């Protein structure tokens, strides 16, 4: 044994303190985000009944939320395994630019352009994963480095928005309503989130991801290939970022530099809000969805009340600090329980 080893485990954790106050606090830390979401919906419904409380507006909220939800769920995977991905916004922007370029400049068919885009995003994710696990660069640094590079590479590829030569069918992907009259991005979000939820909660690899996130050394000694699991999580984050980028280009009808950069902060805010939802400081898909809805409802309400656009970053930044703060508090109660 070396002098640096972690101290031996303390025995028998302190029995739980029982007090209604504590129970209420834990309850608040678990359901606080959901209560907050419901209160917001209630507030807007009462104060702007005609505008907020309508099918059209709800679909609008869901539509806006769907792109954030997809990219945030990918980010959730990297956080579940105890890592970080700061490149997702840049990946989404970059892939969004490339996918339109493939169609407009290279004459690729739509399906092939999308497949290439998603493969590109996953590939960037795998590269992130390799840098973190094999080269052992801190995830914050490696993903920020890769993301920054992508910005420059995107600029090199096309300094101007790619707006002409994009097939109508491509823009229809995000504008169409094929199932139940729901906007397609909402359907895509439901499918992606459901798949990610099943993988995380019901499969081998999901259990292994949770094990790696809980205790990496213990996971390694349990026979789990920690590096592969982490690379898988990064690849998923890259895939989801690419999907969001592609859908955004379809929505905008153009490939624009830096178009999706802002999703990074939205995704982080959502994921951390989610980690304080239902569980005690753990990252999970359901929580992330709740976090995304809080942001979407908030933005929607702000715009209905005609708040100037610069209120959005105040709300966004504020909610991120609030989210991380709540998550930290939830963790502390979890630890002392």
């Amino acid at each position, binding site marked *: *044994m070396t*002098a*640096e*080893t*972690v*101290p*031996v*485990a*303390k*025995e*028998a*954790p*302190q*029995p*739980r*303190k*029982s007090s209604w106050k504590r129970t209420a606090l834990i309850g608040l830390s678990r359901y606080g985000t959901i209560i907050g979401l419901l209160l917001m919906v209630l507030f807007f419904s009462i104060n702007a009944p005609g505008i907020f409380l309508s099918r059209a507006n709800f679909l609008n909220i869901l539509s806006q939320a769907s792109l954030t939800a997809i990219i945030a769920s990918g980010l959730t995977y990297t956080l579940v395994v105890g890592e970080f991905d700061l490149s997702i916004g840049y990946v989404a922007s970059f892939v969004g630019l490339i996918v339109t370029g493939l169609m407009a400049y290279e004459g690729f068919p739509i399906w092939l352009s999308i497949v290439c885009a998603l493969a590109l995003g996953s590939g960037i994710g795998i590269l992130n994963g390799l840098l973190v696990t094999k080269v052992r660069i801190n995830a914050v640094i490696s993903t920020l480095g890769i993301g920054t590079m992508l910005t420059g590479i995107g600029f090199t590829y096309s300094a101007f928005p790619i707006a002409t030569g994009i097939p109508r069918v491509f823009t229809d992907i995000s504008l169409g309503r094929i199932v139940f009259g729901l906007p397609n991005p909402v359907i895509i979000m439901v499918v992606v989130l459901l798949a990610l939820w099943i993988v995380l909660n*019901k*499969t*081998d*690899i999901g*259990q*292994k991801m*949770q*094990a790696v996130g*809980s*205790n990496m*050394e*213990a*996971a*390694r*000694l*349990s*026979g*789990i*290939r920690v590096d592969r699991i982490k690379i898988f999580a990064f690849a998923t984050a890259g895939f989801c970022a690419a999907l969001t980028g592609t859908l955004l280009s379809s929505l905008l009808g153009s490939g624009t530099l830096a178009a999706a950069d802002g999703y990074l902060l939205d995704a982080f805010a959502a994921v951390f809000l989610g980690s304080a939802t239902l569980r*005690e400081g*753990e990252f999970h898909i359901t929580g992330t969805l709740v976090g995304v809805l809080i942001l979407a409802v908030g933005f929607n309400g702000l715009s209905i009340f005609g708040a100037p656009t610069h209120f959005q970053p105040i709300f966004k930044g504020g909610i991120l600090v609030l989210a991380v703060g709540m998550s930290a508090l939830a963790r502390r109660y*979890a630890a002392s329980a």
Partner: protein
Amino acid sequence: MSATVSAADAWMRIRGLTKSFAGELALDRADLDIERGQVHGLVGANGAGKSTLIRCLAGVTSPDQGSVTIAGSELQMGSPQASERAGLAFIHQELNLIPHFSALQNMLLGAPKVTRFGMIDWKRSGVAARAAAERVGIRFPLDTKVSELSVAQRWLVMIGKALTRDASMIAMDEPTASLSEPESEQLFAIIRDLAAQGVAILYVSHRLEEVLQLCDRITVLRDGRIVSEAERGALDKKGLVRAIIGHAIRTPDERDRLAADRSRQSVFSARSIAWKQAVKEVGLDLYKGEVLALGGLVGAGRTEFAHLVVGLARPEAGHFELDGKRLDVANPSEAVKAGIALVPEERRSQGVMLQQSVAFNINISTLKLLRSVPGLPFVSDAKSRRQAESLVAHLGIKTPGVTAKIAGLSGGNQQKALIARWLNAGTKLLILDEPSRGVDVGAREEIHDAIRALARSGVGILVISSDVEELTLLADRVLVMREGRVTGELTGADITESRIIELSYHDAHDDQGEAA
């Protein structure tokens, strides 16, 4: 009870101290007298109330009832500052030292410092610390960074820190848990010295021999109550164990020990394994059905050897054989696939996944067996629960249910869950590094039973333990390692504490200078 000192004279008088958590009494009307100049041992199983008592004294926990009087004046409960002002110092197993600070900086941490022009005057601030260092016999320079000190030296720094504040009582929690035998001896000498200087020592330990040897007075707690109090010599080890667990345990000679039989099939072999300076030419054979143990001092290379076997590191020379076939594992995943598993030394940092459930912790190595449909990667909740429940019952793991978080279990039950992890995993060789460290006497016996049953069922068992008594209780054969080499082998009746210690320390006095 044989209280010879009349209560009124006692320096510290604890009266009727009671504390309950969630309706359960953790401490039940505890009365205790502590005298200056005495080493007072506090023993009991986990959950017996030792930590609660100490936490109350430290002011970290407020008792529901009861009082503490020190030298005639009542101690304000629930205030760490008041406890410190009253001269009480507490040294926990996890030494609260800042690794990047020097020993001196650590000793002065939080103490008022002498300043000059607003800057800390280290020279003058250090006067009290230097005097304290002298008293505990610190021989290394005080400007050494704590990260460069051995665990034993860190203990000296902690004691020095307490003395710098003029502590009149020092409570120590499991001080020898990570110390080697000579280091422990050195610490005992210092403790006796401190007692002679009039400091009261409250000594908490699971190592009963130590307590019997060191303490002037021993208090035994069980289920929150003080069940026994004895002066030095009034209790022997058997009596002490009986007081702690409420019944007697088996002695080594009463249990069956498998005779070493070289004709049996070898499950696992190591051939001239070498790695860095830590492991030198280690060769061994593990025969079917036996519990083979590696004894020796902390730092003898045993843990490193285990890490080589499971692929956490690769040997620089030599090779392993499993079931007669040459084994080549590059990482723990390949080791697990080959049937080799390690229950690691550091339960908390390398073993349990604390925020996960008991079932999750047990099942994580056998996910493939728990699929709903073979071939598809979906894990069946029902199968997971069934496997966990059957293993929990099999090993007698005490838990409110398999979905309960493992963090809520006692150390002994967490350890059993870690053993359960490998029972259905097709394990051929299970290495257990310090299987009962920090586990109470009763749980230790149950862990030993489980290990022995596994060995008899044909799983190769390699136990690493620095607890000499554990080796005599558990092992069928003991290999003693010293400085990276196997220096001796003990079988049958030769497995005694004195023989193991002898082989562990053989010309160990060469290293003693280093420990100082």
